[in-house]
């Protein structure tokens, strides 16, 4: 298991470095801009004007709360970062095993005395670690501007809570994409479908505050349950976090069972039909 985790992390080095730098730069930039924003009367006037002239837009982006560090992060950081990292999570989930399968490298790895279970869980843990590392980089990068900022300050532990909530949802996107990759004919199809669901969840959640028709749909949108400012102010809702972790676990267990029972494709084979769901329940 350790060898599988180690080599999976090694092959994710590029993703960790690339995404880590991007997310760190974004977090530092957003943290640094806060002083500029609260120090500018003109900017605050513009925000206040929005709440009067365009209340719907102001509600979507919660402009009224931007004069506090928590509100600023809620609007300028947590409003779109889950979409970005969510897309990364779907890509990671779809690639967990299907990329090696399509590249043909899985064939030789599984010809060694490593069980499908060890390979599956080793890869899953490695990818989960990659997501945790990226979230920790983002968290640490938001703490960094607090060292020089006069106004931007949130206790480190409390700032960790929105990232904890985000972790549960990212894991949901990753495991959903992983499940799709076990069922779909190709990794790209799985990644694309899961990515579309992330995008749909983002827009439904964002617009549900102003479009009444989307309110019911938002109940089924994972990002609706992302806690950002609320987690910092009132603490993490452990019930919802627990529900997401439980769903993640169910999805990953189904994927594991599918991987246990399926044929491993030879590199280059492209035209596979949808895997038969009954294979989950019926042992060959």
């Amino acid at each position: 298991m350790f060898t599988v985790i180690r080599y999976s992390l090694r092959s994710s080095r590029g993703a960790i470095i690339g995404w880590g730098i991007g997310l760190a730069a974004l977090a530092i930039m957003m943290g640094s801009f806060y002083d500029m924003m609260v120090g500018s009367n003109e900017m605050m006037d513009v925000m206040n004007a929005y709440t009067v002239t365009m209340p719907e837009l102001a509600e979507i982006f919660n402009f009224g709360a931007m004069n506090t560090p928590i509100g600023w992060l809620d609007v300028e950081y947590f409003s779109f970062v889950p979409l970005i990292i969510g897309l990364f999570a779907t890509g990671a989930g779809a690639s967990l095993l299907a990329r090696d399968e399509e590249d043909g490298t899985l064939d030789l790895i599984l010809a060694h005395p490593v069980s499908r279970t060890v390979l599956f869980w080793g890869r899953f843990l490695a990818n989960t670690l990659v997501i945790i590392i990226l979230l920790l980089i983002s968290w640490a990068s938001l703490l960094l501007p607090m060292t020089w900022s006069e106004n931007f300050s949130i206790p480190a532990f409390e700032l960790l809570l929105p990232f904890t909530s985000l972790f549960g949802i990212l894991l949901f996107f990753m495991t959903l994409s992983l499940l799709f990759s076990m069922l779909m004919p190709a990794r790209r199809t799985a990644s694309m479908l899961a990515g579309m669901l992330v995008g749909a969840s983002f827009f439904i959640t964002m617009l549900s505050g102003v479009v009444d028709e989307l309110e019911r749909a938002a109940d089924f949108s994972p990002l609706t349950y992302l806690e950002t400012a609320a987690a910092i102010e009132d603490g993490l809702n452990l019930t919802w976090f627990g529900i997401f972790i439980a769903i993640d676990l169910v999805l990953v267990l189904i994927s594991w069972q599918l991987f246990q029972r399926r044929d491993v494709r030879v590199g280059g084979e492209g035209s596979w039909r949808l895997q038969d769901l009954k294979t989950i329940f019926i042992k060959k």
Partner: protein
Amino acid sequence: MVKNYGRVKALKGVDLDVNSGEIFGFLGPNGAGKTTAIRCMLDLIRPQGGSISMLGINPQEEPEAVKERVGYLPGELHVDENMTAREVFRFFNRLRGNRSDWEFIDELSERLKLELVSPIKNFSKGNKQKIGVVQALMHKPELLLLDEPTGSLDPLMQQEVHRMLAEAQNRGATVFFSSHIISEVQAIADRVAIIREGKIVEVAVTENLLHRSMRQVRIRFQQPTEAEELYKLPGVKLIAKDDSMGLLLQVEGQMDVLIKTLAKYPVNDFETERTSLEEIFLAYYNGEKDK
């Protein structure tokens, strides 16, 4: 074994016994089912029917126990191309619990002139194939499953790999290899199976197959002769008639009857040539020896 991919019947009932310690050639053209059979043996794909026992173990029930003792070379080698050959060997060695002897790995690499420290993405197809050969042999497995082991190698390297397989056999290993290079099978296999469209059509000791196989007989008479009775003999087939003085015949089985019949005729020249495994193989594929 029976294996279907949807409506495609890849293996229609492959029945094989491979003896311990032998080099067994598995001969067939692309798409005949060679790779499918080998991948079933390693539990990479699951057959719909039949059973497999390797080294006394059912690979579907105890895949790791089998793979512990097997070395596998896939038909097309795919590895992480950002790694070097040494890193690939280290990775596979770790998956095997660090069982391999690095001196042996270095020796195999040296014999195949394999560069160990450059990234694999810079390698030619032949050099990648060498990595596959070394990783299959490096832990001195009891059973080698090799899917077209010398496909991309130059003739010198092919011979080196043949020597390595012979050495593995001398150490007690069993070698099961698929190939469509008939000369290779003829050169190193103790026994051979021919697979056609998912069915085994022949299993034989390579030497016996060659001996009991067809011969071509070229006869030159001293004068124009019809000699129709010659190619009406059982097992004899007329291939060509060269004016009225010469005949080219294909003879399957014993030559005795043909020679005795021919003794009645004034013969100027008589040449016989045993068919190669390639011709036997082609005969199966041309439907001449359907079973």
